[in-house]
């Protein structure tokens, strides 16, 4: 009994490659060497590439940040959030208004945008997180629409035209206005987001999210406050989105309601789900797919969403856990 059983040999080429990779990176030295190489490459990347590719990479880093935030809500806590663009908008507009209308320094606006996201998160999450899970999907969807319609109809947000003249951040006396500046800014942000996600995942709070996801009642019986724990996920995830929004506003210097439509929420969600919910490398992979596919295959422009729709459907039907594979499990034979 209880002997350790390795997974049966497979003939699926995908699985063979995955298994080989897992075995290879089992050795921590290889893993760290790989990470160091990747980071090194990304650091020198702006020196060897065109502005256009840097733009794409910046966009990718931006997706990684925002989607890791959404991943906390959807992947870790298992709550379907369909209005994430609204939290992204909360951050962008907080920075936009404070910067363009009141002339506040960019870095000072960030705490405000986090606070705004936390308040919005509490307002939506507190009453609804105790309801059935799938109601949250609709409430967040509705909230996303309310937010978009509100910023479209208010004066302070500049209505349908939006805000212009958002100030560029100044970093140690250098005004960040080159694409390479933003490349590095979002690169650092993405690394911070990865570290924070990783630490949360492997912590008391991260485990509590997993327990609730697996069995809500059993988690409650183990002394976990289901509502507040979920609320934490909701607020932390929303804050990621808001910070992403602030930096987005600073990079663009102009924002309008068109950047915060339902379809943007869907694209973020797609990145999280395609790669693999709840798995950091999965989210990075998903972000790459969502950002790079339309760039690599220029011709697919108008068909992009249709293709994504099919991709999403196929992934759900055949690999509901996403493209990124799970760690091989140890199991006992009876």
């Amino acid at each position: 009994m209880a002997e350790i059983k390795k997974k049966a040999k497979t003939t699926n080429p995908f699985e063979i490659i995955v298994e080989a990779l897992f075995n290879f990176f089992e050795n921590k030295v290889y893993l760290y060497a790989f990470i160091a190489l990747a980071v090194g490459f990304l650091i020198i990347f702006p020196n060897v590439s065109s502005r256009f590719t840097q733009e794409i990479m910046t966009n990718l880093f931006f997706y990684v940040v925002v989607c890791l935030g959404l991943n906390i809500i959807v992947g870790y806590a298992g709550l379907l959030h369909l209005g994430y663009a609204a939290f992204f908008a909360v951050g962008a507009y907080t920075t936009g208004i404070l910067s363009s209308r009141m002339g506040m320094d960019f870095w000072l606006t960030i705490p405000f945008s986090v606070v705004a996201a936390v308040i919005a998160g509490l307002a939506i999450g507190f009453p609804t997180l105790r309801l059935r899970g799938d109601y949250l999907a609709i409430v967040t969807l509705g909230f996303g629409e309310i937010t978009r319609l509100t910023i479209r109809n208010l004066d302070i947000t500049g209505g349908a035209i939006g805000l212009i003249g958002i100030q560029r951040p100044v970093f140690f006396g250098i005004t960040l206005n080159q694409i390479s500046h933003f490349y590095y800014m979002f690169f650092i942000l993405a690394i911070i987001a990865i570290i924070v996600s990783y630490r949360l995942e492997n912590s008391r709070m991260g485990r509590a999210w997993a327990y609730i996801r697996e069995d809500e009642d059993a988690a409650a019986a183990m002394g976990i406050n289901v509502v507040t724990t979920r609320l934490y996920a909701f607020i932390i995830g929303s804050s990621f989105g808001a910070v992403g929004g602030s930096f987005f506003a600073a990079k663009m210097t102009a924002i309008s309601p068109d950047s915060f439509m339902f379809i943007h929420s869907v694209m973020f969600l797609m990145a999280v789900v395609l790669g693999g919910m709840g798995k950091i490398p999965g989210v990075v992979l998903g972000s790459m797919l969502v950002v790079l596919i339309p760039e690599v295959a220029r011709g697919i422009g108008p068909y992009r969403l249709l293709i994504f729709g099919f991709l999403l459907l196929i992934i759900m039907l055949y690999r509901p856990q996403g493209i990124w594979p799970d760690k091989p499990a140890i199991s006992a034979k009876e």
Partner: protein
Amino acid sequence: MALLEIKDLTLRFGGLCAVNALSLEIEEGSIRSLIGPNGAGKTCVFNCMTGFYIPSDGEILFQGQSLRDKKPHYITYLGLARTFQNLRLFKGMSVLENVMSGMHCRTNAAFLTTVLRTKGQKKEEKHIREVAEECLDFVGILDKKDFIASNLPYGDQRKVEWARALATQPKILLLDEPAAGLNKDEKSRLIELMHRIRDERDITIFLIEHDMGLVMKISEKIFVIDYGVKIAEGTAQEVRDNPKVVEAYLGKEEEETA
């Protein structure tokens, strides 16, 4: 004063009465059982005690404090831990992670300390792991801590549930049909384990069982309920000799007018 006191507990669903004016007391350091046929309302009593159901009437006092309107997680924090009749493990997670869940209510690392990886947070993580491993060792499955819970055989899964409940560091342990589905061997080891929990860890035990043989061996005092009403209370011998109990378990002796 009794550690736990149930007074006139009543639970109604629609028109049906699942528990009817049940009263009982559990003294600290004792092993008590609640027995009765299937559908007699035993699990409903547990669900009321642990906050999963809100009683229609009556009172549950734990160390003199009312548990009415308390949330399940808070009741666990107060010191009542439970197991489930149909195993409710976190199936996709490792055995160790399962047991670590029990420590949640005894620890408090939050967002900032976690993100900053403070010394205190690291120490706490280590502590959680140690307690969980100790609990696994206590029930005897420490060697399987890295297995995925759902891949263990049934008897071991039960043990994981026990270790998980122990990790919440309870004052009283509520066991819902712990012997269901176990064979004779496993049952006798179960009895030994219950004694060790009570004697070595000073935890009061309250169990629901259907298997009267097991109950009679282990508990000093037994409460018998049938269709939500307490029909007997006393030692194994007293209960066994009670005609009402015999009737509830074996059916009426005398022939009805057929």
